[in-house]
């Protein structure tokens, strides 16, 4: 039963390695990776159900008892993240089948896709700080390669910047690990939680906490450390950008949530205020970037930033309802952003450009695409009854209850600007007179829409079915707000 825990880790890493041997055979790669992905999806769903029914699953690797060994811990939050990651990755993979050119897929696109998933899933599951670092590196090296994949000038330039800033963050991460090991003598999350509670979280531990905010802030694209993100996410092919926008930066946010609920949860007046201020600036500056931009993909990339601000806002308000909203927001945003990036890819295929001013009138030749985009964009902007509304509502409610009026005002204003820039895309790209020629109007994109449509349906479904989903995320929030649950299930006292 507990061996089930290994599935989301073993399936992608083994099959990623196997796929390397089939790099010259595109068809075999597609079949193998398709089957692998579906197996991973089924595994994640099984795990999700198992955790939802039985509570936290803990696997001690090599049977070393905690706190000495490295445990894999899947609580409700981790299981939820694994499920979201599997859903998003499945959709992206099937989208990649039709958009990644054969020449790219020969150079190990699919293996690195799965190695990236290994890193992401591992980061969600691990119960050890240093192991988190290792999984981060697994994820990052795959992401560097995928980001530079194809080696256009633009991609190389942006990958170099992304690489440098992330490697710098990794070194800070190592320094943070060193400091926290010196201060507490352990690296196991649960044990860290116990030790930090004993020591009392004051001067030195607060400094370490801030160091971790910086590290995960760089990886998670928070103000003032997000500058690498917009251009890095604009460069690579759409399938890769969709995966990055949907999943990659979520891992940094997840790490913040994990660290600041289990370990550094004793001084929220300080740490969570820092996070709240960062969240407010992230929201507003991200959306301003989107408002100013006229490139389809870069608008979406800037929106990623502002949405991370929302997630952090929900978390740093630190009340059950706001955290429930933040977790709902993670699911909502992963789904919607992946879908939007895929729409950007489809539209680029039709019009041959991602510059808004050179596009127009796509709705006349491809009505399905336009209307599906419209639904998704409205969901991102937070129009009821779609998922975006129910993601923002608990955040606003939680903020008002806790008296954080300024950040609530910022959030609502940013929502308005989000709506504006979504309407901007709708107006420039889909309405108006067609600017693409006859030949391009006949391009059929139906097959591409098959992989996006489930995501659009999902955002509608979790919007209409917000009640049970929010109930579940509230359970998650209650669970992570009480770190003793996590600690006792790992250390078993």
């Amino acid at each position: 039963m507990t061996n089930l825990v290994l599935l989301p880790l073993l399936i992608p890493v083994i099959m990623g390695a196997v796929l390397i041997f089939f790099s010259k055979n595109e068809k075999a790669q597609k079949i193998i990776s398709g089957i692998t992905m579906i197996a991973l999806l089924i595994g994640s769903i099984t795990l999700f159900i198992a955790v939802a029914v039985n509570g936290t699953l803990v696997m001690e690797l090599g049977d070393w008892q905690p706190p000495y060994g490295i445990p894999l811990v899947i609580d409700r939050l981790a299981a939820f993240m694994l499920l979201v990651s599997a859903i998003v990755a499945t959709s992206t993979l099937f989208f990649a089948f039709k958009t990644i050119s054969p020449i790219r897929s020969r150079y190990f696109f699919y293996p690195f896709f799965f190695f990236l998933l290994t890193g992401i899933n591992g980061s969600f599951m691990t119960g050890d700080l240093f192991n988190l670092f290792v999984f981060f590196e697994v994820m990052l090296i795959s992401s560097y390669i995928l980001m530079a994949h194809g080696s256009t000038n633009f991609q190389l330039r942006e990958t170099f910047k992304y690489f440098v800033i992330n490697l710098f963050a990794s070194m800070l991460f190592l320094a943070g690990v060193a400091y926290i090991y010196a201060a507490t003598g352990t690296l196991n999350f649960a044990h860290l939680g116990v030790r930090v509670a004993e020591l009392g979280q004051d001067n030195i531990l607060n400094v370490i906490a801030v160091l971790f905010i910086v590290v995960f802030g760089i990886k998670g694209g928070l103000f003032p450390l997000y500058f690498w993100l917009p251009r890095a996410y604009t460069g690579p092919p759409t399938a890769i950008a969709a995966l990055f926008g949907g999943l990659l930066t979520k891992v940094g946010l997840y790490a913040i949530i994990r660290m600041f609920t289990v370990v550094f949860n004793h001084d929220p007046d300080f740490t969570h205020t820092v996070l709240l201020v960062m969240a407010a600036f992230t929201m507003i500056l991200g959306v301003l970037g989107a408002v100013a931009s006229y490139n389809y993909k870069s608008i979406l990339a800037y929106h990623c930033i502002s949405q991370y601000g929302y997630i952090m806002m929900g978390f740093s308000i630190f009340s059950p309802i706001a955290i429930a909203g933040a977790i709902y927001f993670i699911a909502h945003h992963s789904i919607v952003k992946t879908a939007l990036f895929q729409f950007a890819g489809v539209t680029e295929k039709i019009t041959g450009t991602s510059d808004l001013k050179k596009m127009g009138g796509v709705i006349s030749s491809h009505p399905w695409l336009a209307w599906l985009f419209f639904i998704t964009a409205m969901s991102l902007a937070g129009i009821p009854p779609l998922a975006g509304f129910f993601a923002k509502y608990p955040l606003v409610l939680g903020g008002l209850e806790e008296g954080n009026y300024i950040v609530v005002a910022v959030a609502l204003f940013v929502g308005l600007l989000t709506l504006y820039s979504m309407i901007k895309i709708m107006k420039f790209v889909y309405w108006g007179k067609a600017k693409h020629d006859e030949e391009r109007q006949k391009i059929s994109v139906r097959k591409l829409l098959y992989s996006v449509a489930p995501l659009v349906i999902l955002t509608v479904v979790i919007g209409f079915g917000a009640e049970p989903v929010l109930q579940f995320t509230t359970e998650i929030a209650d669970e992570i707000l009480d770190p003793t649950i996590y600690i006792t299930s790992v250390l078993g006292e």
Partner: protein
Amino acid sequence: MELLMSISIGVLFMVGTYLLLSKSIIRVVMGLLLLSHGAHLLLLTMAGLKQGMPALVDRYDQAFTDPLPQALILTAIVISFGMTSFSLAIAYRTYKFHKTDNLDELRGSNDD
């Protein structure tokens, strides 16, 4: 000993950060390299340097040096080795494609 180590870590971090801020790609890569050395030494030093016997539990059952940081460093060194070789590869590719190693000229416009 700890003091000496701390000073050299500080120097490594300082030089690394300085190189990171320079304009040549290869200097930036070297800066990252030095930073990673600094971080590894920090990991070793923060846990305390030699405090007794080797960590062979059967032979010496009194005080022995904490073996965990060494395991951590080993992992971290392997990772940063991989990262360094990748960074050299990508620096070379960037240089070859853009025909410059000056980061100012790589600032980029909306040309591509």
